[in-house]
């Protein structure tokens, strides 16, 4: 139960709506996710929590929502210490959370999702009315009787916010809410947040994007390696300083291109023409894709998630059937959806879900390194595996790609994200591919691992590999790609050269707005 017993006294310098005092949270295996974290969120403010992946932002918010219990330190709501034993306690104390991965029951209606976890008899009509009323009040219109799976991602996010508001959340925590939104949708979200703070509610806005923080937050607290690096007022903050606090060293803001010693040639190693394909739910996910990647070239595909990137990668890798068009890798045209044909043609593939699609998580590293080549010599003789050779190969690759693990028999799932990705890249790049498809190859990795992965990609391009890089991280694309293709609703909106790329223009294209392009054409 929550220890909040009385209404906080607002008179005489109102206490922070939510504070953390010396929060420390350790995980088994010695990982310290939060160490002596202090935070004060004032009533009526948007307080940004800025930090890189793995800085401890999510752990801290999970402590606020009762999913974790901190090992040390205390949480105060309106100045009174509280102790959360379960998410219910946090909800009752007025804390609501919108997770990055929505916590919604797909088969339920909006109103049913909003009613989850409440008490008393179920009253469908009253629940629907409440959803409508909250929607009108905050500009979060959504049909209360629609099923979640029928809604767009942006609409689902609205449901999450309505859920929190209907539980009378006075403090709303949003975990990287704009990652799944178009710029336009993000702007709409910011205006919702402003309406909420105008009523005296507080918002904790978790992000790693500086520009966003500047646009929406009043104050910002920077987290790095589980520690607070300081709190600043956004109005007076210097972006460079915030970035330095976040990364721990001077960084180049924006995305500077990593220079390469080779330039793209005319050899087309990967080409798609008129490719159409259906998504998982039968809807057309790719609506005619034309794209070419040359030797030594990196083509970045950017777009808001869910616009066909995953399907595009799968089609090239032979994991998804096309309904029209052709895919060529080198000289080979993929005749049907079969990853083996793509592999034999010289394709390497780093899938988005690296641990579950790219690797078999419970199997040892050595088996995962053999996943591609186990069928033929030198790893196999006839139907038999050559276990000794597999072990040798694993040892060699682990040394060459700097995979840090106790040994080749360690189960892959216990590795850190960076090492998992290195295992995957070691296997794929050691097959001397002609072309590589990499989907969000650095998502969720720490700074060091991000640099390693980018270096590996650049090295591969220098060796002549044609790389198709799919990423939602525009900075990553800007720093790696020679050309940038913007994907929107299964179509390539435009392909621009890196040197001509303009971030604002790309943003508009990602949102489906081509008006300025048409204007140019006319």
């Amino acid at each position: 139960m929550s220890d909040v017993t009385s209404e906080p006294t607002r008179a005489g310098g109102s206490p922070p709506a939510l504070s953390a005092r010396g929060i420390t949270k350790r995980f088994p295996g010695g990982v310290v996710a939060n160490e002596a974290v202090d935070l004060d969120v004032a009533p009526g403010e948007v307080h940004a929590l800025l930090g890189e992946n793995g800085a401890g932002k999510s752990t801290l918010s999970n402590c606020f929502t009762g999913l974790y219990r901190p090992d040390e330190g205390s949480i105060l709501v309106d100045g009174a210490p509280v102790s959360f034993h379960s998410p219910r306690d946090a909800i009752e104390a007025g804390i609501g959370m919108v997770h990055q991965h929505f916590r919604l029951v797909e088969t339920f209606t909006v109103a049913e999702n909003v009613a989850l976890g409440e008490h008393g008899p179920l009253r469908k009509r009253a629940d629907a009315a409440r959803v409508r009323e909250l929607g009108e009040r905050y500009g979060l219109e959504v049909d209360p009787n629609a099923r979640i799976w029928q809604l767009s991602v942006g609409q689902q996010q609205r449901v999450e916010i309505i859920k929190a508001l209907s539980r009378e959340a006075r403090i709303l925590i949003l975990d990287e809410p704009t990652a799944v939104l178009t710029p336009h949708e993000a702007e709409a979200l910011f205006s919702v947040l402003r309406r909420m703070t105008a009523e005296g509610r507080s918002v904790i806005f978790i992000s790693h994007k500086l520009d966003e923080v500047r646009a929406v937050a009043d104050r910002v607290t920077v987290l790095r390696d589980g520690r607070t690096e300081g709190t600043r007022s956004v109005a007076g903050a210097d972006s460079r300083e915030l970035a330095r606090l976040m990364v721990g060293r001077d960084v180049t803001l924006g995305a500077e291109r990593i220079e390469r010693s080779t330039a793209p040639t005319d050899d087309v190693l990967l080409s798609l023409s008129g490719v159409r394909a259906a998504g998982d739910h039968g809807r057309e996910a790719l609506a005619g894709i034309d794209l070419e990647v040359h030797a030594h070239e990196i083509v970045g595909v950017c777009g808001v998630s869910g616009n066909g990137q995953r399907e595009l990668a799968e089609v090239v890798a032979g994991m998804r059937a096309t309904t029209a068009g052709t895919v060529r890798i080198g000289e080979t045209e993929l005749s049907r959806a079969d990853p083996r044909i793509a592999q034999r043609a010289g394709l390497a593939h780093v899938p988005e879900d690296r641990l579950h699609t790219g690797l078999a998580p419970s199997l040892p590293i050595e088996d995962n390194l053999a996943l591609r080549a186990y069928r033929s010599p030198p790893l196999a003789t006839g139907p038999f595996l050559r276990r000794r050779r597999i072990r040798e190969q694993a040892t060699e690759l682990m040394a060459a790609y700097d995979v840090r693990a106790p040994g080749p028999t360690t189960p892959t799932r216990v590795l850190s994200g960076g090492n998992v990705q290195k295992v995957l890249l070691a296997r794929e790049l050691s097959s001397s591919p002609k072309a590589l498809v990499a989907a969000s190859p650095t998502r969720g990795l720490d700074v060091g691992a991000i640099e390693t992965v980018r270096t590996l990609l650049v090295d591969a391009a220098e060796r002549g590999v044609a790389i198709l890089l799919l990423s939602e991280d525009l900075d990553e694309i800007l720093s790696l790609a020679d050309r940038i293709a913007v994907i929107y609703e299964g179509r390539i909106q435009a392909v621009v050269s890196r040197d001509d790329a303009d971030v604002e223009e790309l943003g508009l294209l990602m949102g489906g707005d081509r008006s300025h392009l048409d204007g140019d054409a006319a």
Partner: protein
Amino acid sequence: MIRLERRVDQPRWLSLAVPLGSIAVALLVGAVVVALSGNDAIATYSRIVDRGFTSRGAFTATLTAATPLLFTGLAAATAFRMGIFNIGGEGQLIVGAVGASGAGIVLDGRPAALAIPAMLVAGAACGAAWAGIAAVLRAWLNTNEIITTLMLNYLAINLATYLVFGSKSRWRDLEGSGLMFPKGKAIPEAFEFPSVDFGNFTVSFGFFIGIAAAIALYVAFRSTRFGFQTRVIGDEPRAAAYAGMRTKRTILALLALSGAVAGLGGASDVGDTRHLLDPKALGQAGYGYAGIVVAALARLNPLAVVGVSILMGGLANAGRALQGPDFPAGLVGTLQGLLLVCTLAGELFARYRIRRAGAGAGVVAVAAPPGAGVQG
């Protein structure tokens, strides 16, 4: 507050201590059950050991009882290793017995050197085909194999019953008393499987086949491409699809292999033991379900299945020999069930480290974060 932490690596001693501890707990609970029903637990256990293993002729009978369990245990282990829950070992063994006895009856007059291999092949083929039904449904229509293999068990017993009791088929003895009281037609005496006498005990041909199958399966899972594929598919089907593995074909092959091994058990039942198709006895024996216990206790390791099946065979043999007012039917099944339950529960201690957390510092629910392992 107690909390659990997933172990990154299992210490070697645990993989021995945990199963032994589980068995000890199972025997202890079993002793309580026996004592509650008014019998002497220690005396009961020592009688089980005596009649199951040490007394004269006991080991021969135990091996006979272990043979079908060896086959169904291997069949279950084979499928379960890939996460395919074939609980149809029962039906596959019965259909294997139908095939083997059919081959024996049809080949009457031919040399035994031809007929005995033919019986084995027929048994394996029938078992494979029976499992193949569930495999095709699972692989191509995504039908849950648990329920289909189970339903096929009932269909198999009905089929065998029909052949012997419900029709005038080749399997039915239509001469003499067989006309009045239906029973299966015996295979020619020359086709009865040979056995090897080791002095103190004899070992049936079927048991040797079972050991050969265990070794072959061990090698297949450890060091063949097929075994590698089953490991990957069993762990993460998406990774298998990514690597271009033929998941459907592998499911079909694996379930057919599993069914074939169970079918060999049926052939052994006909060739080694009963020499005819006996639907009633096969139906009541429950070899298939006991095989799942064997496989689970052996932690799906084919070589361990050999040992566990002898243990379970000894229990079953002792149960049969001792059955009476002070040794009720069901005691052996209860003990087997307790062993299984305790072993399963014991796995927790092998997989997780149990920590007592200080007040206020516990995690309500537990999982290791992805980064909890090796940092790099």
